[in-house]
């Protein structure tokens, strides 16, 4: 099949297959897990195929053959391709882990359709080129994520889910009001058409503020990260992994698309503000992670900190390498954070609690999980050859290129702080009193998956060069090909 045919087929497959499997899992709950595994097997291949197809030139596919502005377009370039692949790979690992994690749990039959919907929503977001369609897909994502958090089933999980849902609804409505202003101003919802310079006379500042604020809440940017720590900490571990690794990245991706598209000519000061908040997030999240007494909360606050790095994109948006840096960062953080949450889940499952002070009891029993946590932590610190290392390197290079090297100091301070909280946990591997008995057994597949993810995160830097080349080749904002 030639490229023009495979691209659209794979794009549609990436959205439709998880939906169909979700329906199947809903209709036949007894086989739900198998449908999850079918999805886990199918999606990485499809995403890799799509990435290969769009590496040369971006894909623009008019659904229903209508074309913009009347219809909706799917759009994929290598940035979306990389994110789709990351989503597929991480979801596959989480699928394997979740089978063990939920083996004896009553909620497993509802977990599978929800997680498949989540996958479809993520793929839908990464493939959409229409601001209203993005709203619907974001809602699908939020509802799936909220329901998955609530599966944690304890009062704390349900309360966290409720707060997550309300925050995300308020944020969505803010975004939607922005969308309606954009539409009524410019008569189109298509990202590429909105980005056409001749289209707007006055700058759509109100839409920018509404949409950015909404997406910032959804993306848990400091100081509006209030919903994240508890939602991510109280959810079942495989869900936490998905939330921290992938779900918070989706609104950021939308913001990124807006920034290299319709909002490309926003005043620099707006970017500076977002960058400053990103810096504050790095420092604040890390400090909070340092003071947590529960492992999963520590990891959740680490996510608050790591999200900050992504917001450094905005002040540096005009530098050449910064998009590579951010793409790589998303990927690297996703792998490492998924590994950390799965490892934390193993510890929690084994001990029945996740109090950091008492982790020495687990060091002897779960060496692989603790090692996975350590390796993933080393990645977060930016240790080479991890993807984070290369990403941070590129980020600082971009800061120098724009002549604003002050940002780089925060990058480095964040690494120092993350070393602090990672060692709080990993240090327990080197404490003498290790009880080797007691606790629930952790299956091999459950211990290996986080380690595999951590290893991937660590080795990501080794293939950074080709990855960066991939992102570089088409300049996403500029090369938007509008369908008929």
């Amino acid at each position, binding site marked *: 099949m030639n490229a023009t045919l495979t691209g659209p087929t794979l794009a549609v497959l990436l959205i439709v297959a998880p939906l169909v499997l979700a329906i199947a899992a809903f209709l036949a709950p007894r086989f739900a897990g198998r449908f999850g595994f079918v999805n886990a097997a199918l999606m990485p291949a499809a995403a890799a195929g799509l990435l290969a197809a769009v590496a040369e030139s971006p894909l623009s596919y008019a659904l229903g053959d209508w074309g913009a502005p009347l219809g909706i377009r799917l759009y994929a370039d290598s940035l979306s391709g990389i994110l789709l692949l990351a989503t597929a790979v991480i979801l596959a690992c989480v699928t394997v882990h979740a089978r063990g994690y939920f083996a004896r749990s009553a909620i497993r039959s509802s977990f599978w359709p929800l997680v498949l919907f989540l996958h479809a929503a993520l793929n839908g977001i990464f493939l959409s080129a229409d601001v209203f369609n993005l709203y619907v897909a974001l809602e699908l994502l939020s509802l799936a994520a909220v329901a998955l958090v609530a599966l944690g089933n304890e009062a704390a999980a349900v309360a966290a889910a409720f707060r997550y849902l309300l925050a995300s609804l308020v944020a969505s409505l803010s975004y939607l009001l922005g969308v309606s202003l954009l539409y009524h101003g410019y008569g189109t919802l298509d990202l590429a058409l909105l980005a056409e310079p001749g289209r707007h006379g006055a700058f759509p500042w109100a839409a*920018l503020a509404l949409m950015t604020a909404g997406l910032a809440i959804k993306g848990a940017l400091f100081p509006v990260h209030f919903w994240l720590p508890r939602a991510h900490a109280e959810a079942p571990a495989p869900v936490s992994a998905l939330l921290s690794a992938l779900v918070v990245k989706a609104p950021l991706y939308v913001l990124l698309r807006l920034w290299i598209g319709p909002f490309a000519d926003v005043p620099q000061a707006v970017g500076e503000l977002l960058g400053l908040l990103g810096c504050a997030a790095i420092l604040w999240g890390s400090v909070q992670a340092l003071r947590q007494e529960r492992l999963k909360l520590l990891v959740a606050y680490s996510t608050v900190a790591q999200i900050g790095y992504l917001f450094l994109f905005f002040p540096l948006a005009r530098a050449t390498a910064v998009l590579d840096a951010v793409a790589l960062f998303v990927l690297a953080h996703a792998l490492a954070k998924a590994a950390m949450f799965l490892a934390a889940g193993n510890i929690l499952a084994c001990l029945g609690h996740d109090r950091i002070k008492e982790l020495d009891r687990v060091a002897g029993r779960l060496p692989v999980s603790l090692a996975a946590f350590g390796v993933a932590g080393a990645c977060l610190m930016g240790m080479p050859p991890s993807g984070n290392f290369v990403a941070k390197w590129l980020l600082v290079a971009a800061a120098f290129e724009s002549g604003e090297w002050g940002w780089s100091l925060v990058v480095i301070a964040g690494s120092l702080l993350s070393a602090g909280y990672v060692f709080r946990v990993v240090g327990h591997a080197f404490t003498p009193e290790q009880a080797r008995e007691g606790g629930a057994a952790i299956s091999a597949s459950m211990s290996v998956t986080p380690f595999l993810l951590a290893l991937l995160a660590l080795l990501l830097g080794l293939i950074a060069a080709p990855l960066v080349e991939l992102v570089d080749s088409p300049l996403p904002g500029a090369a938007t090909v509008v369908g008929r």
Partner: protein
Amino acid sequence: MVLAMLRNAMLLLVPLWPGLLALTSLALHGRRLGGLLAVAGTAPALLVALNAGAYREETYPWLLFGTRLGLDRADAVFLSFAAIVWILASVYALGTIRRESGRERFFGLFLLTMSGNLGALVAQDMPSFYAFYALMSFAAFGIIVHELTREARHAAKIYIVLVVIGEAALAAGMIIAAGATGSSDFLAVRAGLEAVPLRHFVIALAFVGFGIKAGVLVLHVWLPLAHPVAPAAASAVLSGTIIVTGLVGWLRILPVGEWALPGWGAACIGLGLAAAFYGAIVGMDQRRPKVVLAYSSISQMGIMTAGVGMLLMEPALAPALRVAIAFFALHHGLAKCSLFLGAGLANSVVHARARRWLVTGLALPSLALAGAPFTSGMVVKSAIVAAEAQLPPPWASALFYLLPLTSVATALLMARFLVLVRGLPAGTRPRASAGPWLAWCASLALVLLLPLWLAPTVGYAWAPPTFVDSAWPLGLALAVALVAIGLWRRAGRPALPEIPAGDLLLPVERLMLRAQRALAATAASVRPLGERVKRAGAAGRRRAWALIEVSGSAEALLDRWRTALLLALVLGAVLALLAR
């Protein structure tokens, strides 16, 4: 073609092979093979070092940002002795690391440290050097903490704090250098740094970052803590090759031989000489042999720091002096390896006669360090002395007088070491197997034979005047020692004030504790934040977190629905105002 590919792969195997073996060792849960794997880990490094001329440079464009591995003449020296030290230490560890103490973890981390160490020695571009250097630094945490005693954990904690600071400084320096010169290659950075406005900042960061490994004064505090608690094999590699890697780092990134940096040169020479004497003096007051050796390392690294300072001051010295410094590192690494292995054996020596043999054996590397005639110390010191005459006026004469005095100090320090080893109580550990003894004897033989190989390589002629030059410091040391002991006896053998290992660290720790208490007290007087702090302080266990705890109440505020959404409104409003 095939040969070229083989060479390309071979160089990559230098770090990769021990890395793979490390994973194997971790996977071989509870088997004895770990030590053998450690011995095997150095094979590619040895092969490469033996034929260094063929491995000038290989590139791996697919790796990181495009990795460049290779060896120049000085690097070949570093790599060969590093490989030797690793082999000796591995053989020694094979017989001494016990199963119940987590052998597979030790050898796994030992091999990872090796991978990082050997990799850094062949890396010629900043990202890969940094990668290997960081791997070495972090993996070494595991071999230092291996015994898991309270003391070991304290030492490892101090070590890791310094390592993290060092890594951050290095990352900052390297990234700035790369960003500013537009290249991540050491060669291009050394050349291009001159035009960079932030060059002094970069140099300062690199100096501090590598200085922590190299035991530069003030940054040296981890060495005397780590060495006595780490297994002897770990101490041998720490002092033998790992601290030298810091020196290699300096030689890579500092513009030695490119352009003159008189200020930095003077600072390095000054700090280096100060460390040479400070280490010796503080070391002489120690009670444990391995701590004395740690201080000796600080002292010896001081001389190498001074050598780097000479290079910075006078670029013309580069070709000869670079190699001389490399050989100095080689000589010191081998001698120190031998000393640490011997000191480790003291624990398993029961009979007095064996003790005498041990002390006699240890005298050989001690003499070499002191630069006694016919030892490697004499050869390398003469090479450095040859260079010092070319320095600008005050420095040439200063070094002329001070360098021999460092030999005097070293001689006194090593005498103290030998006395301490002789006075150790009879061994408590079961007799060591043959392996450790074999490793130690091999190291002695190498120390003995080293001058024969060194002399022609550094262009040293066996001339009698140099014998005299190297002999008189020993005589002076002997005289000083006799006078000092005489004075001490006459005064009625007073107890000498004891400087604890880690010297500067203790007052600093005490100061920090006091500052924390003061801050906590101040914060406690400010309500309502103070409530939390008071509680934290009263509990008494989380003092270090007192400040961080204060942030908790702010986070609790941010965690409220109302506050958070209010802030979201503010964010939206500010965004709108800025965008308008």
